[in-house]
């Protein structure tokens, strides 16, 4: 009996390793792959999001998605080269909420005046299958220009892309 118990721990450990390995293999196999991505400009709907914010979010996102290195090509919305690519995914952003902050207020109080932008981020393939559907919030607290909220947002989206693909 003692002989058998001697092998219980190493066998259990081996079994655990095998299980973990197979789970990891499953998760990596489930990850979608795409060679290129097209990024659409934000749909602000009825929310009064200033054009400078929309512009900054878009351009920051292009930079951050390129940085992930997950796609061979990052296409801008409307690019003719992306029109007939089979292995292309499309990223869309829909504004959910927008809270105006104030840089001056942040500087004075340091606890209030934060700016936040909440957007629904969706990535779908050519067939329309939704690969990513998440709400992302970009914030700027304490010190700093409102531009940082757009940077914060695009960093978070890039992180989602990094884990999803």
């Amino acid at each position: 009996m003692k002989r058998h118990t001697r092998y219980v721990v190493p066998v259990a450990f081996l079994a655990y390793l095998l299980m973990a390995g197979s789970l990891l293999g499953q998760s990596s196999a489930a990850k979608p792959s795409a060679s290129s991505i097209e990024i659409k400009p934000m749909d602000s709907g009825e929310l009064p999001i200033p054009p400078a914010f929309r512009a900054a979010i878009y351009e920051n996102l292009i930079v951050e998605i390129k940085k992930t290195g997950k796609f061979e090509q990052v296409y801008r919305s409307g690019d003719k080269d992306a029109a007939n690519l089979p292995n292309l995914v499309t990223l869309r952003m829909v504004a959910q909420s927008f809270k105006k902050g104030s840089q001056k207020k942040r500087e004075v109080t340091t606890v209030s005046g934060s700016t936040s932008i909440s957007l629904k981020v969706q990535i779908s393939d050519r067939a329309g299958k939704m690969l990513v559907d998440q709400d992302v919030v970009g914030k700027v607290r304490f010190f700093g220009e409102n531009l940082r909220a757009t940077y914060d947002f695009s960093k978070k989206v890039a992180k989602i892309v990094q884990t999803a693909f």
Partner: protein
Amino acid sequence: MMSIESVMFNATVAVRHGRAATPCGARGLSLLALAAALLFSPAPARSQALTQADVKLVIGGESIKKSSKGTLSIAGNSLKFVGGKGTLEVQASSILDVSTDEDSRQDITGAAKLATMAIPYGGGRFLSLFSHGVDVLTLEFTDVKGGYHAVIFELPAQRQGAPFKKQLVAMGAKASVPLAEPAATKSEKKP
């Protein structure tokens, strides 16, 4: 300026002709009328030179680094930024939207404007990417392949973006918010 000088020259020629012989009087008068018409007609937008130094390209300059400082101008039919070891040129006809901070101020009107103005620290007036001492010019445009681009310029003082917007719109650029009336005419008191 060149056109005005040439018109003035034509006018003096016309007067001399008129004095030399009376049959030429009608011709001289018509030339004078033509000269006057040309003198008071508005100059086309293309000929007006607009240049602003010390402009910061905040984002969207492609090969130009973020926050590069340079000179923003209107050359020919396009907006040109030279600085940060590069040049960015945007054709006016390719601009989908041009806006300034002044437009964001315009968006809030009526009772909402009064209510937001009551918020302390200047936070309620309008939302800008930057502090209140500057103006921001934002362009959304397409490249030759039809790809969407956006670029943000920070101009050193308030209300400096409006002349650029006005000229770009005159050259064929689109603007979702119409051009603002000059502040001076708004505050003018009627007798």
